[in-house]
């Protein structure tokens, strides 16, 4: 048996032992409680736009009714039980309790990668990739394709099934007789519908890659995207970075307040001069078609120093947030899962 495998076994056994022990001490650990609520609705006339309006009614008169569950603290469960033992309004949620344990185990599995690659990490990595790829596809479908593409091309269906607030236009692309250029809603609709039609054509071209022949057509939408990105970034980047940063630097290095002592004047002027020198020297470092010798070389060397200070300081400032992220995960394990600490007084 290798030393590494030995370490794994010892760690796992000790950990499971502690976990079992924890389960029998005090309040135990890792449970989620929920409170039941009800939604029961009946139609209450129609709005000015002809949409049905719904109001809450007693359960037996409802046309649509369902039960909701919202998360509450273990303290709320204890209080509800103390008031009325055996009540069924606040109960233990099995799906969420299982979820909490799954989340905790996945968290530990990812941390185990720090020791070495191992089956637990590989398993959670596989789950992570599969779930997240599907997750973003689902989000892309329901948040982009349905409201934008289908909303423009099949507005009636989208309104009936998904998005009742959608305004169905009075125009149809297939029936030019319905077009009314005087209607203020017409041109915005034309724009929306037109872009979605182009998007659909481009999308089909992209998917042609899956066909045995003619996959080169996917190069067209890609070319559109690359060109569009290049054209837009060319101007916006010059505006927001080049010009804005140059403007920020073109300030008087002297403090505007009159009547300062020589000492204050010196300290007040220094930052402006240092910034100017720094910007110029760093830009010299970025000169590519000039060899870094002589004056340019000297300036470039100073520029490198400035860049190193910039990176060092940014590193120092960024580290904070990183440690906070780890602290959050540790709090999740100790507080939500193991119930070892209770800083927010959720259980007592």
């Amino acid at each position, binding site marked *: 048996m290798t030393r590494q495998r030995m370490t794994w076994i010892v760690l796992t056994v000790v950990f499971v032992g502690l976990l079992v022990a924890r389960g029998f001490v005090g309040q135990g650990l890792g449970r989620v409680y929920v409170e039941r609520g009800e939604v029961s609705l009946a139609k209450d006339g129609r709005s000015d736009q002809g949409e049905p309006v719904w109001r809450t009614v007693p359960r037996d008169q409802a046309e649509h009714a369902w039960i909701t569950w919202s998360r509450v603290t273990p303290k709320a469960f204890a209080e509800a039980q103390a008031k009325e033992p055996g009540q069924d309004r606040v109960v233990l949620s099995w799906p969420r309790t299982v979820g909490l344990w799954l989340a905790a185990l996945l968290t530990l599995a990812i941390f185990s990668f720090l020791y070495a690659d191992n089956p637990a990490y590989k398993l959670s*990595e596989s789950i992570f990739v599969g779930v997240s790829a599907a997750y973003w596809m689902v989000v892309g479908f329901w948040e982009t394709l349905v409201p934008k593409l289908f909303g423009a091309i099949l507005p009636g269906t989208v309104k009936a099934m998904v998005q009742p607030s959608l305004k169905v236009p009075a125009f149809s692309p297939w029936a030019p007789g319905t077009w009314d250029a005087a209607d203020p809603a017409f041109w915005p609709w034309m724009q929306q519908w*037109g872009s979605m039609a182009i998007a659909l054509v481009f999308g089909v071209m*992209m998917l042609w890659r899956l066909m045995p022949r003619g996959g080169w057509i996917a190069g067209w939408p890609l070319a559109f995207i690359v060109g569009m990105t290049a054209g837009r970034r*060319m101007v916006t980047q010059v505006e927001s970075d080049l010009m804005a940063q140059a403007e920020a*630097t073109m300030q008087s290095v002297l403090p505007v307040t009159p009547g300062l002592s020589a000492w204050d004047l010196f300290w007040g002027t220094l930052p402006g001069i240092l910034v*100017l020198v720094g910007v110029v020297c760093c830009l010299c470092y970025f000169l590519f078609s000039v060899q870094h010798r002589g004056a340019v070389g000297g300036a470039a060397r100073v520029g490198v120093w400035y860049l190193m200070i910039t990176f060092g300081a940014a590193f120092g400032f960024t580290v904070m947030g990183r440690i906070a992220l780890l602290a959050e995960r540790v709090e999740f394990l100790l507080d939500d899962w193991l119930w070892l600490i209770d800083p927010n007084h959720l259980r007592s």
Partner: protein
Amino acid sequence: MLVGAVLGLARGAAAEGEAESSDPELPAFHEQRLPLAAWTLGIGLATLVFVFRSRRGKPPVIRRLAALDAVDEAIGRATEMGRPVLFVPGIMDMNDIQTVAGVTLLGRVARTAAEYDAQVEVPTSRSLVMEAARDAVQSACLAAGRPEAYQPDRVHYVTDEQFAYVAHVTGSMVRERPAACFLMGTFYGESLILAETGNHVGAIQIAGTGETSQLPFFVAACDYTLIGEEFFVASAYLSGEPDQLGSVQAQDAAKIAVIAFVVIGTLVATAAVIWADAAWLHETSDFLRSAVGARP
């Protein structure tokens, strides 16, 4: 349908134009963006001038960039060791210019790899980037005269989720032990996770990004880093074509113009504080500042 769509867009434009131009305060041209137009045209003209000069046989000499001179060495090492080369084009989509720059660089790296007979692995975090990267690698193999070296499955999509992508890439780094890692594109928090793992498996690492918040981590953890603008000249540098080198020279010309503006602008602004009564100094200062987009 496409015709109708284009027509619709054109008419939509006309209508919006009417609606807006009926407001006398809003002329068709964004006049506050006049300085921007001047800068953009200036950079464009400089590019044309220097490209033509370069074509006429005066290509500029570009200073050496150690990170890019190391590309051949890194790929050669991968070939010798029989290990793959990993290329990560960032985690953003094709509507980010850094991803576009990363994909053009992938084309250069893949060409060298095809010549050296090294395998390039490209996991991507976006479907469109996968398609663009496949195109780039395929044309690189073709240009290297080895079309059979192109294996589309080596350029594959993983997931759009930032950290699931990172989990997969770091996991496969530890398992496949690439000899060289290229991290070229837009990176956020994951930059250091990738760079430290690559370092741990002993890969030569060359990184490049324009994401200023991540540069410190790449500088600390990678062997070579293309800092900001260096990342954007990398593709031109590696191509060695006179046209592209000419455009790099245009970048320098624009940079010298910016330096001149900044130095003169600061001096004039300072002078305007010292001689507060001299109206012409204030006017000059305001003019210079408005030329870089300052609003009165």
